[in-house]
């Protein structure tokens, strides 16, 4: 069991990294640990628990900005925003459904460091697009900051983009500033029933290419739809299109969208409550939670992959996998985001997935698999040599001794 340090403030974080450097030790950075089971398994000397770095330090709704210490619970931020009619537009997922033993919604630092975004990604952007500034301690043991607390800023390199999706391998963030946005007045979802994946993607492409301003486009094949606890989803495949905004606008766009979708299949619709439940389930990958709940036999749950590809190629990608293995699949981001599960086997289906990604384009991340599998294969997308070398040089610029989350993304990074 590695030693756990719980710094009280940013100064403590700096001292911890400096001491680790002096002693030649490695550090795993943890917030609430909600995404700790993602990535290559950590084998570090120390755990740096940032959960005591908690608290919202600035919130100015009219400026659309919020600053918080990195370990602030996401739930606390979401509650405060909701009270002011605002939200995190990138819809960060709750990993509690898919990962065994996770009870927390996670921290803001974790949501940004992993850059995981929900269904609204296609319209509002990812976590990276709402990340305005931060303070952090690099693997060199130096405190530095980047960005600012205003929504428009091009002063210096945009290091927020680099921190988003770096999984704690470059620096330990201590405080972050994000852009927040108004919560839509209402939402409704149009359902199209009974489509095959390829037809669904054609329908979603037409919807996304319209001026209806769709903020969520997902397709759930029949065997997946039945698992969504949103009611009205049983009885065949469901393609869902979400509209959000002011009441008169949503009503008008719904009329337009119905006309546009009429030729594709039988239409249904979900009111605000059904819509919220459905998109929360899609955001949290709830259809694949049942498998994770098989906690009596850990290690036997199906491996879960998250694949980002060109939306128009989504069905083709899924078919390539499904033909070779018994995969369970559903589609978000109008076909551009594929969630799929496979029998864990020796490699969680990695060889198959990587071949399909190479042929079709995009990237795949193994989100859930036994630690032994995650230790043995690439969890993150393998990189071509030039990008891998560049990645390593970037890592060396921030963490030359490999102190922070070593090997979490790739061996040697």
């Amino acid at each position, binding site marked *: 069991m590695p030693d756990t*340090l719980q710094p009280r403030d940013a100064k403590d974080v700096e001292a911890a990294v400096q001491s680790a450097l002096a002693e030649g030790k490695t550090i795993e950075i943890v917030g609430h640990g909600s995404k700790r089971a993602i990535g290559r398994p950590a084998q570090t000397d120390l755990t740096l628990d940032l959960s005591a770095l908690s608290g919202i330090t600035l919130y*100015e709704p009219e400026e659309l900005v919020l600053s918080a210490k990195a370990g602030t619970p996401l739930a606390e931020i979401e509650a405060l925003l909701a009270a002011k009619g605002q939200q995190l537009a990138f819809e960060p997922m709750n990993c509690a459904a898919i990962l065994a033993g996770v009870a927390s919604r996670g921290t803001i630092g974790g949501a940004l460091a992993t850059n995981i975004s929900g269904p609204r990604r296609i319209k509002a952007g990812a976590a990276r697009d709402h990340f305005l500034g931060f303070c952090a301690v690099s693997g060199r043991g130096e405190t530095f900051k980047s960005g600012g607390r205003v929504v428009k800023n091009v*002063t210096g390199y945009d290091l927020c*983009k680099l921190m988003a999706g770096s999984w704690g391998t470059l620096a330990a963030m201590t405080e972050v500033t994000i852009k927040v946005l108004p919560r839509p007045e209402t939402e409704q979802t149009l359902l199209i029933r009974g489509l095959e994946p390829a037809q669904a993607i054609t329908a979603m492409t037409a919807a996304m290419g319209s001026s209806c301003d769709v903020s969520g486009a997902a397709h759930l094949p029949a065997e997946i739809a039945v698992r969504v606890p949103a009611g009205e989803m049983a009885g065949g495949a469901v393609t869902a299109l979400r509209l959000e905004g002011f009441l008169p606008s949503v009503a008008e766009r719904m009329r337009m969208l119905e006309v546009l979708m009429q030729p594709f299949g039988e239409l249904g619709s979900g009111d605000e409550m059904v819509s919220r439940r459905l998109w929360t389930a899609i955001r949290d990958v709830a259809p694949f939670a049942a498998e994770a709940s098989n906690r009596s036999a850990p290690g036997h749950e199906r491996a879960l992959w998250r694949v*980002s590809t*060109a939306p128009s190629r989504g069905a083709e990608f899924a078919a390539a996998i499904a033909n070779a293995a018994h995969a369970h699949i559903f589609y978000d981001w109008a076909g551009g985001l594929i969630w799929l599960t496979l029998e864990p086997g020796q490699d969680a289906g990695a060889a198959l997935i990587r071949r399909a990604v190479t042929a079709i384009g995009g*990237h795949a991340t193994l989100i859930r698999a036994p630690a032994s599998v995650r230790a043995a294969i690439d969890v993150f997308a393998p990189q071509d040599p030039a990008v891998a070398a560049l990645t390593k040089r970037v890592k060396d*610029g921030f963490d030359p001794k490999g102190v922070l989350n070593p090997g979490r993304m790739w061996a040697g990074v």
Partner: protein
Amino acid sequence: MSVAMPRPDQSVLARRERIVAALRAIVPGEGVIAAEPEMRPYETDGLTAYRQLPMVVVLPETTQQVSRILAFCHAEGIKVVPRGAGTSLSGGALPLSDGVLLGMAKFNRIREIDFANRLAIVEPGVTNLAVTQAVEHAGFYYAPDPSSQIACTIGGNVAENSGGVHCLKYGMTTNNLLGCELVLMTGEVVRLGGKHLDAGGYDLLGIVTGSEGLLGVVTEITVRILKKPDGARAVLIGFASSEDAGECVGKVIGAGIIPAGMEMMDRPAIHAAEEFVHAGYPLDVDALLIIEVDGPRAEVDHLITRLEAIARSCRAVACRASSSEEERLLFWAGRKAAFPAVGRISPDYYCMDGTIPRARLPQVLKRMRELSETYGLAVANVFHAGDGNLHPLILYDANKPAELERTERFGADILRLCVEVGGVLTGEHGVGVEKRDLMPAMFSEADLNQQQRLKCAFDDKGLLNPGKVFPTLHRCAELGRMHVHAGRVAFPDIPRF
């Protein structure tokens, strides 16, 4: 010119003839320009106060040529300054006397339009507006719209992370990119992103965007395109004070409305614009807001009604909603012509670009009026009010002795003021050479050193666009050195378990 550039490398200048010959071997024909008169057009960019002839200009046409040029310059230790259309307002494309100016204008083809995936793949020399023109027949457009969009190139937009009046709702360049092909200073070609969203590893595309040509040269860019909204209307609102206008902006956002555009002008800017284009702006007001909303008819009309109510509650003294497309465009005509309009009332003007927390606007304007008196220079303000991006235009006459220097000092004071109130040095124009020496007002040495370490990962010899962004240049070896204090007390009094 009041900004010091890296000292010219005499050994490079001594080899000039051989370097020109080597470049001619890579880019045949008229792609290498070495004669002074032909190099003149490249001596400056949109920040015309700074001028410098490059050692040589090269205009490659293929990625392979760019790769060979950079590999050659890397091996020979020659500096390189990339350039798009040269519309930078911060001197980002200012040449170096011992450097190769790498003009990307010949990369002007649109390679692919993919409506199904809502993207276009373009070369960096394609102009911003040309992307929209290539897709508008199908009702699509490219959202970022810097005011130089007729001339500025996508490659330059990537380098500067350009914005525009619509970026509050639709994002800056960085929010509208999917991928790029990038040539590193070593000549290595890497592909970042593609037709899919987000990076599978580090977001290197996000880092390259806004890096001001210091990390690599993009040779292909994949941009997202959007379906045009069904319609748009604008409302023109006049206020007796900037405080009232600022309150109105806050209330609009507080009401959950993110307008497509929300622009503010102060009295001098209103008068200059009105005299120039006769947009029908009220002249007896201290601040004018143009708020535009877009979307389906029902949404636009609904929001216009709400905006008018908010304006009344903030003591608006004039309020007019556009009732036709002509009228909407007329409202914008004044704002869009604000810079040239100010150009008519003053021999020269200097355009600043800071961002402030919007609530501090009245305080910043007041302080700016005081500075204006101190320096004896008039100032007009246009302001992207929604996101706090301020463009003060300082009026001066370059022919009067020392007036440019006084203007620059005034401008620097304004930017320091922006940082002081919690804002930043630049919202969309970039640091370039213009704000380079002000960077320490916003960043500590540790902050800047960490940024430069990132530069080292891309350009270990510091040959790509040196003298921009960073006030002090360090060697990568020096920046990489670690000072580990062995033997110190382990984890002094941090709670541990």
